[in-house]
């Protein structure tokens, strides 16, 4: 395996130092790294920020079933280019990831692709139908070792089923990740309910439809003493509820997406389906609240909710278009733009919300670790001074439904290392044949 000497890198944005990667781990730092790295491949990293490899709790890889939108191969290529060393693949595939067989299939596809670790998310209920618990234990004990369970795309809306799921996963230290959406309040919903939806004549998705489920679930989690993770939280009210729950000692974590950190429902004007997403883009007040919640630790993680769609599923009128946006290759840039470059967060905070916290929630022992000798060399090297215009057709994801198309964003991933092996160097994928 190639050894790498990163010269002048800034771990977590701190002082420049040299970092030696050998045998899959961070072998040495500083002068010792320089001394021991005589034969290493040198990566000049002056001024570049070194982060623990990013971990996404919320990726849709679409395989099996919708390989026209994304495959495990294309999705994990995108992940590597985005600086991710581990992703959780959501369960709403066809067939659904609700058995040990399917989660093992996805896990193996990820392992064979080799671009990052793929951890399948198990469905909470059979076929995501919300009625009968899937075989959670079998998935947990499979080769995929599932720890995160979710019907994402659908809400586990039956309170009894949700209670049972929360209780059941305690046996293997699992977590239920809820897509908080009260289904009756969102029937036919097309976008956030408010001034813009009223004007555009689109059925609204009210904030309270999310907040009602978040409030119910934190109380259920408290009652049964289990772990709850709130997926893609999007409203100021949800932030307040999670803040209250944490203050009360409830074991709840929460996630926000990059697009909810940057974009508002004003983008729906023009009916461009690239901005159609679930939960919908909210108001400027909501955006401010989720930024504040992420900065003060109320929101634990940034999850991409990378949702690729085939071109025909977005190249149509708004009402007929699918919900969802791609995000793996732009997530870090968006977080830098709205949180770091504005002074609301440091790179240490970024490492927390995009690496260590999601790794902890997903119970990944080898990810999200400190950058220290002996630790697994899952690392991301970022050039914060770079700027780039997003061109979806040039991305690795198989789909082009990026809400940031044509937009200039700061920062770029220069290199990604998966257990000491470069998956990305000089901003480009290191193809299998070039690996050593």
């Amino acid at each position, binding site marked *: 395996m190639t050894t790498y000497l990163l010269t002048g890198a800034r771990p977590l944005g701190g002082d420049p130092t040299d970092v030696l990667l050998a045998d899959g781990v961070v072998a040495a730092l500083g002068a010792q790294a320089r001394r021991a790295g005589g034969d290493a491949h040198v990566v000049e990293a002056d001024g570049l920020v070194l982060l623990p490899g990013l971990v996404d709790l919320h990726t849709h890889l679409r395989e099996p079933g919708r390989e026209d939108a994304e495959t495990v191969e294309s999705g994990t290529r995108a992940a590597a280019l985005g600086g991710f060393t581990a992703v959780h693949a959501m369960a709403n595939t066809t067939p659904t990831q609700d058995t040990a067989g399917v989660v093992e299939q996805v896990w193996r596809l990820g392992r064979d692709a080799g671009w990052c670790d793929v951890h399948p998310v198990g469905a909470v209920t059979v076929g995501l139908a919300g009625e009968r618990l899937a075989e959670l234990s079998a998935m947990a004990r499979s080769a995929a070792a599932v720890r995160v369970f979710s019907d994402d795309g659908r809400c586990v809306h039956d309170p009894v089923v949700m209670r049972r799921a929360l209780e059941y996963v305690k046996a293997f230290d699992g977590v239920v990740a809820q897509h908080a959406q009260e289904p009756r309040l969102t029937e036919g919903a097309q976008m956030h309910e408010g001034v813009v939806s009223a004007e555009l004549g689109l059925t609204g998705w009210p904030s309270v439809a999310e907040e009602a489920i978040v409030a119910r679930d934190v109380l259920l989690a408290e009652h049964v003493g289990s772990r709850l993770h709130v997926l893609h939280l999007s409203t100021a009210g949800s932030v307040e509820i999670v803040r209250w729950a944490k203050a009360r000692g409830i074991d709840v974590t929460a996630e926000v997406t990059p697009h909810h950190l940057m974009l508002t429902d004003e983008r729906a004007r023009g009916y461009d389906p690239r901005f159609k997403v679930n939960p919908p883009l909210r108001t400027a007040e909501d955006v401010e609240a989720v930024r504040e919640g992420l900065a003060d630790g109320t929101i634990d993680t940034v999850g991409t909710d990378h949702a690729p769609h085939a071109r025909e599923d977005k190249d*149509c009128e708004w009402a007929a278009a699918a919900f969802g946006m791609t995000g793996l290759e732009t997530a870090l840039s968006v977080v830098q733009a709205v949180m770091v470059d504005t002074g609301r967060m440091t790179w240490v905070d970024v490492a927390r919300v995009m690496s260590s916290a999601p790794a902890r929630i997903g119970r990944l022992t080898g990810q999200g670790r400190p950058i220290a000798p002996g630790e697994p060399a899952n690392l991301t090297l970022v050039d914060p001074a770079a700027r780039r215009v997003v061109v979806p057709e040039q991305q690795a994801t198989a789909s082009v439904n990026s809400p940031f198309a044509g937009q200039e964003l700061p920062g770029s991933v220069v290199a990604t290392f998966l257990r000491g092996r470069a998956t990305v160097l000089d901003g480009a994928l290191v193809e299998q044949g070039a690996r050593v």
Partner: protein
Amino acid sequence: MRHLLSAADLDRDEAVLVLDTAGQMAATQAREIKKLPTLRGRTVVNLFFEDSTRTRISFETAAKRLSADVINFSAKGSSVSKGESLKDTALTLQAMGADAVVIRHQASGAPHTLAYSGWTHGAVVNAGDGMHQHPTQALLDAYTLRRHLVGDGGRADATGRDLAGVHVAIVGDVLHSRVARSNVQLLRTLGARVTLVAPPTLVPVGVHSWPAEVSYDLDEVLATGPDAVMMLRVQRERMSSAGGGFFPSPLEYTRGYGLDARRLAVLPDHAVVLHPGPMNRGLEISADAADSPRAVIVEQVANGVAVRMAVLYLLLAGGEPGARTGDGQGRTHVRTDETRAHA
């Protein structure tokens, strides 16, 4: 203005121009030979994804009176029912040389998508999209209001005038109404004052940003003496898809928001009653009110043809097919003299 997608596309002068042009078109319709050669050689496609016999016939009549070739395309029984997308339908029509596409679609924003997607190069006229907009309905309503309320009871020439000082109450199912959305914008553009009256369940969240007052009490509003009352159809078909339950019973709705003889009697003598049709008689409007001399509902239909002639004329006459004249600043220059109209 290359397309007409929303009442918001029109500023005050443009809206008045459409109304003035409609007046001239209406004048030609009193003649023995109603047909004008203005759009000879142009092709107008009526692309209807949603049933609407009266609007389709109105546009068809308008286009034919201007000598355009008209193609009617209904989603029912067409390739759309076999799964063809709006995009492919539009590309087909484009290949057939449509200069204008009049589109009615159940999805809000579909005309906008058609206009700006590059799928067609012709002018796009929104003939009603979901709960969003129905701009020609608003224009024909404004035209009807101007005829009755501006000048000396309609006898004086209202050309060049807007609706400043006119108070219009729009009553009923505002939530699901593209007519209400269009009218609020256009009436305000023309200087009218608008009061929306509906039960709270049929008022959209976010209505506070609209340039209109909101009341839940019809009798209270009628007592202020509005110049016009525009009744909206209760769209029960949309309610069923959205879960229903917007009001407890038809009887309770009628008691609270129905226009009947008693409420009609409260109105000032000059006030008129409008309804976009089709009416639910006995629900939002009683037979007494619908058939009263104050009701200008049938006249609205006739005015619709003149207004749609004006819109098609302004969008298509002059320049290349699919283009229109303009000063490059979104302003319309149209020769509205009869010489031009007969050219």
